[in-house]
Each structure stands twice: as C-alpha cells, then as structure tokens.
C-alpha cells in the first residue's frame, strides 16, 4: 500500500500555501510534517483526507485517485485533527464505542475498556466527557488509535495537551503501528524523539515566507 502525492498545490484566500508538492509514503514509514504556524500543515493533512480539495495535483492511494474510491480509502484512514471529535454529553465509553462503530467495526465492551485503561482513563468510562480535563479529552480521542484497524494514520499535533507520561505512551503507540506495517503522517511543534521505522521529514515553511500575498 502506498500513498502518493503528485504536484499538489493549495491556495487559501490569496495565498499560495504550497505548490508542486510531491512525496510518497510506503508501509512502515512515518512522515513528520514540519513548518511554522500558518505554513499549511493542517491544510495539507486535510487535503490528504479529502476534506479539502486541492487546487492542483493528485493524491493517489494504491495508485488510484482518492476521489474515485472514497469509501475504500476512508476505510484505511484514521484522521485526528485539532478538534477531538468527541461529544461532550456522551460518556467516555459511549464516545469511544460510537467512534469505533463508525469506523466500521463493532467492538466488544471489554476491548474498549482495555483501550481506555491503556490510555490512562481507567475508571473514567462513565464520566461525560464535558467533565474531563483538556488532556483527558484528548486521550479519549486518542483511544481510537488503540482499536483502529486503519493502515494510514494522519495525526495533526496529537501531543497537544498531553502530559509527559501520555506523550511517551502515544509515541510508543505510534512506533508500534509503524513497526506493524502501518503508515503515519504527523505534525508536531514539540520535540519528540520518534525512533522507529524510517522517518521521513517534509518541511513546508522553507518554500516561502509566511505573509499573505497582499503584503508581499
């Protein structure tokens, strides 16, 4: 399985975020996306998910454009953005079960509880997520990683709001996924040593300065 990006271009408003961006990602590879605030990392990641339509270029999954096979592609995809994607009024367990079912599998409660335990939410399963702290909310969102069967993980600043122990845990989860043949694309502004697999780095900010074009 491969993700291939060819000559991608994204324009937001009157700013060209990136042009002619091409790369390829294979199994057991991890790609770190780098760039300063506003350089277009989130935009790129959302384009890769098909949430944002690029202005030019192509995104291919196993050689076929993701536009032409969206359900097949989406089955292999797990995206975690700046927003946690959890409902404040549902309990931790309900949220996780809903997210898992949506992704296509109907997991047993045992498995879900185990995932919550691993992610550090033991005994919180019946709390409405509105009553959790910022970092605990993020953990609920991250628990999806533990029960997901998706090949390609796209993670937008996953370490935000996590405490040190949780950052380490998440790193090992990611490393594990890569070791098992998964693919990960992630961004982070924090220094985290990700030691596994073949790390690729892609930097967005060098390509151009950070001003809206009207100011150039």
């Amino acid at each position: 399985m491969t993700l291939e990006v060819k000559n991608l271009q994204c324009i937001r408003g009157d700013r060209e975020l990136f042009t002619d961006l091409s790369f390829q990602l294979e199994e057991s590879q991890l790609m770190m996306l780098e760039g300063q605030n506003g350089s277009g990392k989130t935009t790129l990641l959302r384009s890769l998910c098909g949430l944002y339509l690029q202005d030019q270029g192509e995104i291919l999954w196993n050689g076929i454009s993701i536009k032409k096979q969206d359900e097949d592609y989406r089955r292999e995809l797990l995206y975690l953005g700046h927003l946690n994607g959890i409902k404040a009024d549902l309990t931790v367990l309900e949220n996780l079960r809903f997210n898992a079912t949506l992704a296509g599998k109907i997991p047993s409660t045992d498995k879900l509880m185990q995932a919550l335990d691993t992610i550090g939410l033991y005994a919180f399963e019946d709390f409405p997520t509105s009553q959790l702290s910022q970092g605990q909310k993020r953990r609920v969102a991250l628990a999806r990683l533990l029960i997901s069967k998706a090949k390609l993980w796209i993670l937008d600043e996953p370490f935000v709001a996590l405490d040190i122990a949780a950052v380490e845990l998440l790193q090992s989860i990611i490393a594990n996924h890569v070791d098992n043949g998964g693919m990960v694309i992630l961004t982070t502004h924090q220094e985290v040593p990700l030691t596994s697999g073949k790390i690729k780095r892609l930097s967005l900010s060098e390509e151009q300065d950070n001003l809206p074009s009207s100011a150039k």
Partner: protein
Amino acid sequence: MMSAFWVLLKRDLLLALRRRSEIFTVLFFFLIVISLFPLGVGSEDATLKKIAPGVVWIAALLASTLALDRLFANDYLDGTLEQLTLAPQSLSVMVFAKMIAHWLLTGLPLVLIAPLVGLFYHLPSNTIGVMMLVLLLGTPVLSMIGAIAAALTLGLRGGGVLVSLLVLPLYIPVLVYGAGAISASMVEGLSIQPYLLLLSAFMLLALIFSPWATAAALKISLE
C-alpha cells in the same frame, strides 16, 4: 452501512434524551405554545376552532427550527462532523439518520400531543384524527428541508441570508396545506384527500432529494 445508520440514529437520540426528563421538556414546550394563543387571541369557541390549525403548525415550525442548531452545528464545532464525513460510509445515509432523529424529537411528540390540542381548543374528534395524520405527513418534510438549510448555513458568513431566503419559503407549502387540511376537516362536505395527496407528494420529494442535497451541502461547508 446500516450499522452506521443505526448507531448514528441511536447516538443522536441518546444525546437528546440523555435524561428522561427531556422528553417531557419537549411535550411541555408544545403545551405552553398551544396555551399562549387563547391568552393572546381570546377564548371564544369559534375563534379557538379557527386558529387551531395555524397554532399546531406554528408549534411544529418553531420546534423544528429551534432544534435545527442541534442537527449539525454542535457536531461541526466539536469535530464529530468531520469524523462523520471521513467514515467509510455513505454520507447521505448518515445524514438521513440525523434527519430521522430530528423528526423523532421534534415532530413525533407534536403528533402525540395533538389530542390535547383538541381538548384545549374544543375540536371535534374527527378533526383531531386529521390533525395527527397531517402532522405525521408534514413534520418530516420540515425536518428534511431544515436539514438542507442547516447544512448550508454551517459556519457561513453573510452568505447565509441567501440560503434562508431560499429554504424558509419552502416550508410554506407544507404549512399551508397542512393547516388547510385541518380547517377543511371541520367543514361539512369538504374532502381532505387532495391535501393528503399533496403532502405525501412533498414528503416523497423531500425523501428523494434532501439526504443527497444535505450531504452535498455539508461537504461544501466543511472544506
């Protein structure tokens, strides 16, 4: 595919009915709206009978509109909507589940409480039956049209005007024929069948087009 439909329907109902008391909240809300009119308009028997059709439909419109926010806005703000569009399921099916949940929570209670309206407004019993029937046919259309509007206005700036200008008038035919049928049922010798046919036609149209249109609108809004 069906599992996503059911799980989403269940989730939306669960969210709304987190506590049992919320079902009662909706029912009492209708009761209040219904009892405001006699206070404002006066309580002569003839007047009450005349305004009854309008009143129930306004209660329906209000409930449907008040809850539109819940349909997508919350999901948009907390990021669940983007997760929905990324799920390996057809978005129209999921949207349809959300519409049904919306109707179950805002339309159905109104159908159920219609007999009480009959009591309060001294309506004959066959009119109460007709009222329940047209509400059953018409309120789903309100939910479905509302969903299109809600999806289009999601996170929109300024442009929303145009949308509400386009969509809100679409409510009017439903309201007019819905209220018309109830009025007709109180007049000796008038057939309500044409009204019912029209309402069914609206429902059919809405069923065919709205899930698709709403899904398209959502994709546009999320970009």
